[in-house]
């Protein structure tokens, strides 16, 4: 039996002071990546700055494509409506690397990467925790850097990067600067837009399937914590150099992704999306617009997706949503046409088209026999798969319709 008793007991009884910080012989970070210490080493933060040309090409676009683009209705879709009027070059792209995926005081933020357009170029700054003791000067420098910026662009920042940073600021008794900024979080929007087509909506999957960009020689994110521990153990910064690269690519991909999303969102209202947009993505954009309350843009996207030959389950889903939007916009005739089409082709994927049609036949067309038949069919087709409450509601509707029929035709025997 392995037993820590003796080791620990000995340790507890004969506490002996040791010299601070064991000398490590590895290659220091300033010899691997050019940059500057934010406080005197050891125990310091380290800042690496890289200026990229505005013509840098990444993920099917040039960085310059993002210049002059206004956030526009993407701000609404991403839950940051305050940013609608801002240009992308007024925002800071932010991505962090950490020692763990859980948000908690024991998780260190080891690298904060920011990117922003500056004086004819794109500058990526990477704040590296060269020693955990350097956290406070690092965070202070980061806060200064973010001071005055209009907002942030992140990928899952709402639930990951910003709470992680907030926790670090609190632990260093600093006001949590990044959390007070508006945040354009691309993850929830990306989920809706590309969710109908892609099983995984990770940044890597979006790069591959949307931006057409394959990472080569990239270190997978899950290895970052152990690489950092290895670096701390040996002091050899070549171990963590790939993490800087990984972080840089994340930031560049975010720029390309947001640029594309802004472009698409601007065209959503007219349904005029670029040819490279897959019909399922167009429907996905419609869904994102619908969630954000932009009914007209949602309608236009669904119509465009159907017109582009969307098929399979996404087609039925888009049709049903489109009909619901028509109804909300008061376009009854259009809604009825979609519902009738779904019922006639037997392709409805929920009982809703049947019920909506039944309501129409009962109250408007005054044809309770047809209404009754529709509800019966809905029960046969969907009854078993529904929640008990919904099924009961359907049966209740049917019973009410049958009573009406009895009254009109008199007791039938």
């Amino acid at each position, binding site marked *: *039996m392995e*037993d*820590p*008793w*003796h*080791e*620990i*007991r*000995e*340790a*507890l009884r*004969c*506490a*002996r*002071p*040791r010299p*601070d*910080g*064991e000398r490590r012989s590895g290659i220091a970070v300033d010899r691997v990546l050019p940059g500057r210490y934010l406080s005197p080493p*050891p*125990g310091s933060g380290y800042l690496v700055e890289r200026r990229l040309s505005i013509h840098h090409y990444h993920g099917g676009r040039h960085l310059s494509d993002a210049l002059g683009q206004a956030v526009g209705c993407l701000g609404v879709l991403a839950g940051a409506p305050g940013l609608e009027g801002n240009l992308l070059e007024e925002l800071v792209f932010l991505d962090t690397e950490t*020692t*763990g*995926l*859980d*948000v*908690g*005081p*024991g998780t*260190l933020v080891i690298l904060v990467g920011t990117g922003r357009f500056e004086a004819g170029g794109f500058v990526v700054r990477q704040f590296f925790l060269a*020693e*955990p*003791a*350097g956290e406070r000067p690092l965070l202070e420098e980061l806060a200064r850097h973010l001071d005055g910026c209009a907002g942030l662009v992140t990928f899952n920042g709402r639930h990951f990067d910003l709470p992680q940073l*907030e*926790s670090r600021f*609190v*632990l260093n008794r600093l006001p949590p600067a990044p959390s007070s900024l508006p945040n354009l979080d691309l993850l929830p929007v990306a989920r809706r837009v590309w969710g109908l087509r892609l099983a995984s909506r990770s940044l890597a999957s979006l790069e591959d399937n949307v931006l057409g960009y394959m990472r080569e020689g990239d270190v997978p994110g899950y290895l970052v*914590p*152990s690489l*950092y*521990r290895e670096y*701390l*153990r040996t002091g050899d910064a070549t171990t963590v150099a790939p993490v800087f690269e990984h972080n840089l690519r994340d930031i560049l991909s975010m720029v390309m992704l947001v640029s594309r999303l802004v472009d698409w969102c601007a065209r959503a209202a007219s349904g005029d999306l670029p040819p490279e947009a897959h019909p399922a993505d167009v429907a996905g954009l419609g869904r994102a617009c619908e969630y954000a309350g932009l009914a007209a843009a949602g309608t236009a996207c669904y119509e465009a997706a159907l017109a582009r030959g969307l098929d399979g389950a996404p087609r039925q889903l888009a049709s049903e949503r489109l009909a619901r939007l028509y109804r909300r916009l008061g376009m009854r005739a259009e809604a009825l046409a979609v519902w009738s089409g779904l019922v006639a082709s037997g392709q409805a994927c929920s009982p809703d088209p049947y019920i909506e049609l039944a309501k129409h036949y009962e109250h408007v067309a005054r044809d309770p026999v047809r209404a009754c038949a529709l509800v019966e069919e809905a029960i046969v087709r969907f009854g078993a798969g529904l929640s008990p409450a919904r099924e009961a509601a359907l049966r209740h509707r049917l019973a009410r319709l049958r009573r009406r029929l009895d009254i009109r035709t008199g007791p039938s025997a």
Partner: protein
Amino acid sequence: MSLEQVLEEFRSGKAARNVTCWRSFPGRPPRLEPFPTWLHPSLVEALRRRGIEHLYSHQAAALQVVRRGEHVVVVTPTASGKTLCYNIPVVESVLRDDATRSLYLFPTKALSQDQLAELEQLAGETLRLKAYTYDGDTPQSARQAIRTAGHIVITNPDMLHTGILPHHTRWLRLFQNLRYVVIDEVHQYRGVFGSHLANVIRRLKRVAHFYGARPQFICCSATIANPSELASRLIEEPVTLVDESGAPSGERHFILYNPPLVNRELGIRRSCLLEAAELAGAFVRAGVQTLVFARSRLSTEVLATYLKRAAAGILPGQGEATVRGYRGGYLPTQRREIEKGLREGKVRAAVATNALELGIDIGRLDAVVMAGYPGSIASAWQQAGRAGRRTDPAVAVLVADSSPLNQYLVNQPEYFFGRSPEHGLVNPDNPFILANHVKCAAFELPFEEGEDFGGTCVQPVLEHLAAQGIVHRSGGRWHWIAESYPAEDISLRSASAENFVVVDVTAPRPRVIGEVDRFSASMLLHEEAIYLHEAEQYQVEKLDYAEKKAYVRKVEVDYYTDASLAVSIRVLAQFQHDPEHNLPRSSGEVLVTALPTMFKKIRFGTHENVGSGPIHLPEEQMHTTAYWLQVPREVADDLGPQALEAGLLGLGNLMVHIAPLFLLCDARDIRSVVEVRSPFTRCPTVYVYERYPGGVGFADKLFELHGELLAACRDLVRGCTCADGCPSCVGPGAEAGAGAKQATLRLLRTGLGVLR
């Protein structure tokens, strides 16, 4: 028939012969004090609305101590209004400053719910008070609001350990403004659980200090020997004791009852369950509202069936509705319905397991019958406290079973009615427990160079963690750099992390119902073992030793299992030694090697051996602490080899059974082993060792109590009527060996004789 008449009949009846002690406590009027003038007028008004016009003297005293800024522990009987001792200062602090926050800790979720209801009633519609429970059942959607807006967060130690402290940056508001920490049922936090809690409190204080808060602790405890010592060991600060109850009570009777002997030679008595059933039946037939406590689920069923029959045709409403079982496995709605029935008097009798012991509100009854000693005097008083209204008389009867401790207590009533002998012990510096919490603490906040942890130097532990790549020293601080969440892997109920999981496969979907530490697994989880959980019995069907999993299934049997071990013990270090004694005593650190050999099935109540089987499991080793006494060579020579061995075994057996009287522990928490010639002492030696790795302080306390322990053992053996050993004293004659009783007595007399 009134209770007095029933008692009068009982006193003159046949059963009275079996009463070993009958104590009557006269009724007592309340000692009242006016509300202090400084109390917030809205709070006074809220109390008046609830019909409270005065404070009892102990409540007023507690308020004064709290107001002076001291930590306090309040010790008062069941249902004496102790909750006001903390609710008043806490609510007052919120009324004075809305930002104030407080944390309540209860050992169980059910108690947390009760407290929430009580606070809500006190607040009523008028006081702006937000109190919430926060535990595993709290929906994710509600958590954010609780973290930021809750004035009072009611939780349990496990949730504080895994759900709050490791996320403290999200609990900023709570920790910045933490004014009071309330710890109720302090006596429950002893042994391993208490040693863990003391470390959780160290972490709590450390995090609170980080945010600039120094909370004041308000603790409540049942009566034990050392409430203020236990409380101050837990919070590691001086604590002021308030222990004079000003609550009123009616006249009360406490009866100790020993079932008659059916075989004097072998020391076998009538079943304690049957005797308890007959006594309770008499109460129920007379219309006296009665609560019966049994120790297992099966016993509750047997007793409930008996009482339903006894009540049939006599009570209105018939048996089903008027006599109810009440135990751990019942659904919350069922339990609440029974509690309500008891409060309203519709349920005339209930048979409960210990589930009812902890403060659940059922109102007060007329009679309590305990079928067997509930394991500690503190528990017995808590159970007895269920009987007794403000003015009417009440009675509690303790029916003994055949175990040595039961027999000792009914025959030595001064232990029961005198000052409590039971010490609640914790050892926050148990190296295993400490090391685990240092990890959690390092995760929560970096340790500073030279920073201690509750006064204990932990720098070397941190160096050890650094060597494993778990923490990293940088700029004079130790930073957590591992990916894991340490708290999630650490159970507050066991000392080491290497636990066996107990999986219940009774239902189609298996579920984990418990954990057992590695050393105990071979004793408690061997195949065919009976495993007890919330007073339900489970039989082990399969033990997957490699995977550390035991698969169990619900059963109902009338026995428990007891594993025999071939134990060898090696002394690693002697901490204390007293050679001046006739039986020189020592305590220290030992390595115990145990090979399980076979198990016995032992019938409840009578403690008869009703079967056995082999155990095939590898041997286990454990580092722990022990207390031992050695027999001088001349005494040994005088006894002769055979009697010596019988005496050593008898003495070891006795000490393990009697020790819980002083230690507030379970008989399974300690074990004994004897050596006819110890390589360490070079004499015949009896060791009593702790069953948890690292120990929690039992061994040191036994060393200290040596004389009292031996005296209690002697009184028990001397008072036993058996011929040569029985289950109620040194063990059945056949087991310890012939002459065990006399040899044990001889050793005890030596130990208690004039000092050399």
